[in-house]
């Protein structure tokens, strides 16, 4: 019995220690971001990697998400004779919820895992130690540019996701199922408020912080060898995805 209680205590302590370290890492990253944001060339390189190179997967996912919403929405609304509200349903679902969450999950899978792997490999091959011995702060070279890039790219990718998704819904609803195109866009303009767009952007911006935070943190403290990096990468993707969904709930309840 005492073994069991000790094991729980040990687990609890290590969990709290990990939480503390994560918090400390975020504070250090925020401080580094203000004090030494990194050279523009490093930031641009990261924007290209996290943002531009995620564009294809975002457009593809957005198109099919919008098309599915168009299909599902049409059959649901048709039961009430409200097919004209399809544009509103698709746009609000995308702008308020699906756009920020799905685009963030896609970026997590594509770029978040790569951030962890890159920093993790630099950790185990002593490249981070090499930076330290040159009296250079690894946060300036590795962490700050990724934070800035994620905070800029994820909201922009979310905006692209929303627009492409809306046209995906339009393709299915208007072109395939015969919804009136005027009603599709007209109802959308009437129903979607700036507040909806703003709340989606706030979510997306905070998801960008989460992706950079967990991606960098897990890589920075990766364990030993290839196994350590692979474990860190998996943990990074899982933890980022879970945190995005949990944070989404809390943010929605605040922003509604």
């Amino acid at each position, binding site marked *: 019995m005492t073994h069991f209680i000790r094991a729980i205590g040990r687990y609890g302590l290590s969990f709290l220690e990990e939480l503390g370290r994560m918090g400390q890492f975020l504070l250090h990253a925020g401080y580094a971001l203000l004090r030494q944001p990194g050279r523009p060339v490093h930031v641009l390189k990261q924007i290209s990697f996290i943002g531009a190179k995620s564009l294809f997967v975002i457009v593809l996912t957005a198109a099919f998400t919008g098309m599915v919403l168009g299909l599902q929405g049409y059959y649901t609304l048709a039961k009430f004779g409200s097919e004209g509200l399809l544009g509103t349903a698709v746009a609000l679902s995308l702008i308020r919820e699906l756009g920020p969450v799905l685009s963030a999950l896609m970026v997590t899978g594509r770029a978040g895992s790569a951030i962890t792997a*890159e920093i993790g*490999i*630099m950790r185990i*091959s*002593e*490249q981070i*130690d*090499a930076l*330290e*011995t*040159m*009296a*250079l*702060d690894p946060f300036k070279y590795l962490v700050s540019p990724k934070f800035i890039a994620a905070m800029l790219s994820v909201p922009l990718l979310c905006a692209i996701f929303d627009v492409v998704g809306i046209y995906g819904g339009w393709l299915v609803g208007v072109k395939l199922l015969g919804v009136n195109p005027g009603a599709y866009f007209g109802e959308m303009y009437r129903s979607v408020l700036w507040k909806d767009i703003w709340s989606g952007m706030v979510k997306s911006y905070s998801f960008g912080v989460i992706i950079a935070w967990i991606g960098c943190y897990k890589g920075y403290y990766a364990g030993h060898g290839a196994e350590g990096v692979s474990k860190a990468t998996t943990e990074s993707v899982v933890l980022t995805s879970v945190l995005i969904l949990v944070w989404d709930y809390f943010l929605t309840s605040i922003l509604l």
Partner: protein
Amino acid sequence: MIELVNLHKSFGSQAVLNGLDLSVPTGKTTAVIGPSGEGKSVMLKHMIGLLTPDQGDVLVDGASILGLRRTELNRVREKFAMVFQNAALFDSMTVYENVAFPLEEKTSFSRDEINARVETALREVGLKEVNRKYPDELSGGMKKRVGLARALLLEPQIVLFDEPTTGLDPVIRRAIHQLIKETQAKFGFTAVIVSHDIPDIFEVAHHVAMLYRGEILQFGTPEEIQGSDHPVVRQFITGSLDGPINSGAA
């Protein structure tokens, strides 16, 4: 001058350093020898503040580096350069970018001046036409040379070498040792070399320290160490299978 005073360090339940004391003479080459896994690299990382001891002190030029803020520690690190066991080159950068990196980040030299200095540094370590290659396209010996070129570029006062010749063939090993000896004589920096290379290291070092079970067992000139009658030192430098290192009786 680097001084390690009563240094203790454990990882989990495993004690690696057990009250280690060492004073590294300024402007000379000190080799730290000892069996694998005895804490030589851990000791080296304490000197530059990459690791913090559980107990004891690390003094650089008479001042403790423990508890310094990052900016203060970085000021101390400006005096240092380190050549890592696996060179620790930035693998997403070319050889040129690796060597130019410290100059680009820490000086305001023009592009032409950086080019000239990188060219000279690579030539001094015997490398030609590798500027555009990536680290994974280089042999082990070439990587170590690039690491050395990168380390020496900012003319440090102290250079730490972590097993600079591990995994190299005897010819390249000797060439790297010769290179270290020549550059140390030319620039006059304080060098600390962690090595297993017996007897080559005796030709390179001015002083040798034998590290065993987390402490310095003996410190002296290469001649003194070679003539030592301590059973552990004798067994280590002769490479004998019989002795206290295997039986654990020392």
